[in-house]
């Protein structure tokens, strides 16, 4: 599933003279392209794109369908594909502004050039991710500019034929723009290459349902675009947000329903493309991914919709494993505590069940330097870790391959993205080498943006008190049956009732079924046995 580059001796793809010759052709084309004639540019680029896709078909299929381990040659070919798409997009893009004067060129010709630029920009985004390269920070700005050109030339809604995977589809500049933006948004570190390929074929199939509006729809949650902000693509819309275009979520959800329905009828959606041959798990992972993303957009409340004032490449602090997360990542957070008499929090002794409510309120007090030594020692041990990319439900971080050697899929990881803010808690869902950067991409699925550190106490007949570490992860459902607690193996095996005090209430909880687990930890459903 992942691209793990194994070194030069492994048999695989190689960059050949033919690949380089194609790059030379692109270079020659750039020198000779008559940018003042958009019709001709579109025609030439369309043919070039088809020729490139025919030429690279085998490479693309092999890279996506092949074994888990990829050679240095494979990596070089993947990078070459990404850079060729980038080059083609640049050629089309450069022809657009030359003709952005009303009446200078026939609108249909301008539209044709823009459609190629936007279509190929989407491919370039996808293949940068597939080849393990960092996101292109200028991509959003260029997409916005292209769409602004289309708006000013009044060709945004012109229906055009585009050739994708040897199939001719009719679509609009607007739909191609939205598809490219959705790829930028969803192509995050926790989406593996094959899933990204499937996702793109779905987005292409859905293109004609991708309509932008000038106002958000009151009846459905929306994503929004601020075309003047070159760092922002499609983001979840909240009232008061600066934005000039909106994409309603409902049509996307309906398209996902339709795709799922196809699987119920025994049809692999959309029925074409490289992804059709992928294992069922890959398709289902895309359904799950989109379902999570859409649900986060639809049910954004205050606790889940915090955006990070941080960009790609920014340094973040990382804590790995249940103990490190509990002891260090959440150390600056006061603990929700057991109801016993001996637990002291922030200097205030928390009383037993009979103690006053005012003392119990102290569990929300800032603990200040609590466990600061542990925090310091954890951070000193690590090389810088950088944010690779981020979506609502997941994010990618980049760490040195040496540090990443100790990280495994299903490990628990906490990130401090914003200093002074709660850590983000996630599960490692993928791990892939970033070629030629001596670093590794770790993809995380976000569990909580505000996990709660708790000291739990076993409720037993014994007089000796026994405490346990826990991390409480509230679900979004008000009924509370989606709430979970993360505990270590020993606490889970003890399978006794546990107590925890939150503000002025004491709860006895039973550990229910395991919702997820990894090395040394289990995310367990909470069943409340007593609430006082």
């Amino acid at each position, binding site marked *: 599933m992942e691209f793990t580059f194994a070194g030069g001796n492994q048999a695989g793809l190689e960059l050949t003279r033919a690949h380089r010759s194609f790059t030379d052709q692109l270079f020659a084309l750039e020198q000779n392209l008559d940018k003042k004639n958009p019709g001709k540019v579109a025609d030439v680029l369309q043919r070039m794109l088809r020729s490139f896709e025919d030429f690279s078909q085998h490479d693309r299929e092999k890279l996506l369908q092949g074994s888990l381990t990829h050679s240095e040659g494979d990596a070089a070919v993947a990078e070459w594909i990404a850079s060729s798409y980038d080059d083609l997009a640049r050629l089309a893009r450069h022809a657009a502004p030359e003709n952005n004067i009303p009446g200078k060129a026939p609108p249909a010709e301008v539209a044709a050039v823009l459609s190629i630029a936007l279509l190929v920009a989407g491919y370039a985004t996808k293949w940068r991710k597939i080849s393990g390269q960092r996101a292109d920070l200028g991509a959003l700005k260029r997409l916005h500019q292209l769409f602004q050109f289309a708006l000013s030339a*009044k060709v*945004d809604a012109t229906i055009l034929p585009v050739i994708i995977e040897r199939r001719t589809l*009719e679509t609009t500049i607007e739909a191609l723009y939205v598809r490219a933006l959705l790829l930028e948004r969803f192509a995050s570190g926790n989406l593996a290459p094959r899933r990204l390929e499937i996702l793109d074929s779905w987005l292409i199939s859905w293109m004609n349902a991708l309509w932008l509006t000038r*106002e958000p729809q009151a009846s459905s949650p929306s994503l929004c675009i601020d075309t003047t902000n070159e760092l922002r693509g499609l983001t979840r819309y909240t009232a008061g947000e600066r934005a000039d275009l909106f994409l309603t979520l409902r049509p996307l959800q309906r398209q996902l329903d339709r795709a799922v329905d196809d699987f119920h009828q025994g049809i692999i959606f959309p029925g074409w493309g490289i992804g059709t041959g992928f294992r069922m798990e890959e398709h289902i992972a895309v359904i799950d991914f989109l379902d999570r993303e859409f649900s986060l957009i639809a049910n954004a409340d*205050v606790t889940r919709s915090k955006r990070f004032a941080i960009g790609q490449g920014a340094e973040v602090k990382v804590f790995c494993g249940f103990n490190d997360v509990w002891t260090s990542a959440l150390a600056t957070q006061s603990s929700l505590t057991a109801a016993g008499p001996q637990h002291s929090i922030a200097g205030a002794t928390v009383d037993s069940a009979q103690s006053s409510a005012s003392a119990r309120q102290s569990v929300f007090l800032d603990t200040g330097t609590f466990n600061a030594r542990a925090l310091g020692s954890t951070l000193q041990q690590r090389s810088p870790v950088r944010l690779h990319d981020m979506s609502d439900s997941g994010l990618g971080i980049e760490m040195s391959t040496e540090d990443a050697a100790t990280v495994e899929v299903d490990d628990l990881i906490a990130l401090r993205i914003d200093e002074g803010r709660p850590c983000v808690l996630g599960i490692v869902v993928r791990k892939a080498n970033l070629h030629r950067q001596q670093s590794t991409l770790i993809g995380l699925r976000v569990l909580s943006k505000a996990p*709660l550190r708790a000291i739990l106490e076993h409720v037993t007949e014994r007089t000796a008190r026994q405490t346990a570490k826990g991390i409480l992860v509230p679900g979004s459902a008000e009924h509370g*049956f989606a*709430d979970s607690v993360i505990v270590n193996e020993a606490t889970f095996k003890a399978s006794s009732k546990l107590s925890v005090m939150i*503000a002025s209430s004491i709860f006895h909880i039973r550990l229910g079924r395991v919702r997820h687990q990894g090395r040394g930890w289990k995310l367990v459903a909470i069943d409340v046995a007593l609430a006082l």
Partner: protein
Amino acid sequence: MAINEPMQSLLDHAPPAPRSLRASLQMPVDSNAVRLRDRYIATRFVRFAEPGASFSSTEDVMGWARQLLDDEQPRLAIELLHLALQEYPEQNRLWLFLLELAFLGEDSVLFAELAGLYKERFSNVSGHDGASEASSSALTTLSIIDAMGHDIAPQDPRYAHVRHKGEKFMLPNWSIPDSVERDEPRQKKLHRALVEAMMFHLSR
């Protein structure tokens, strides 16, 4: 301005709309399609032992669907119910489970479609005079469905006959299997406390 005003020619090229519920609740006929569907079910519901083989067990399907709802996976729960009904559409309680989910999701279109199909399939039970216990229970169920319909879509003429008594509508709890004991107030109290604690940390 094209934005906001999709042209008719583009609408003509729009992707196909989702199938009607009636169509999507049909089993595929082609043997290859059935095999692919089986593979999908086995992979999609890998957490449950042989889910496809248990689709005839209403209690199992309801229990699993409830678990999925509690794990905040409503789409998966709905899928499970759909797939079970594709094969065994006579499972009355699975229809009711779906109706309650549509009601809770405030999806009046889906609710009406489900209610129509449910009545088509089960309303004949209530057609006898001198009602037996079963037909009386069916009549009650139908009147609850109508009341729910009226609550979710008060303007819908299909529910115009419902007399609103001014009482707060009580959910029938069709989405909770009989075998499951739940104490909602306790669970809600913990949830509220956790959310408050979370808000406290986020606001600092």
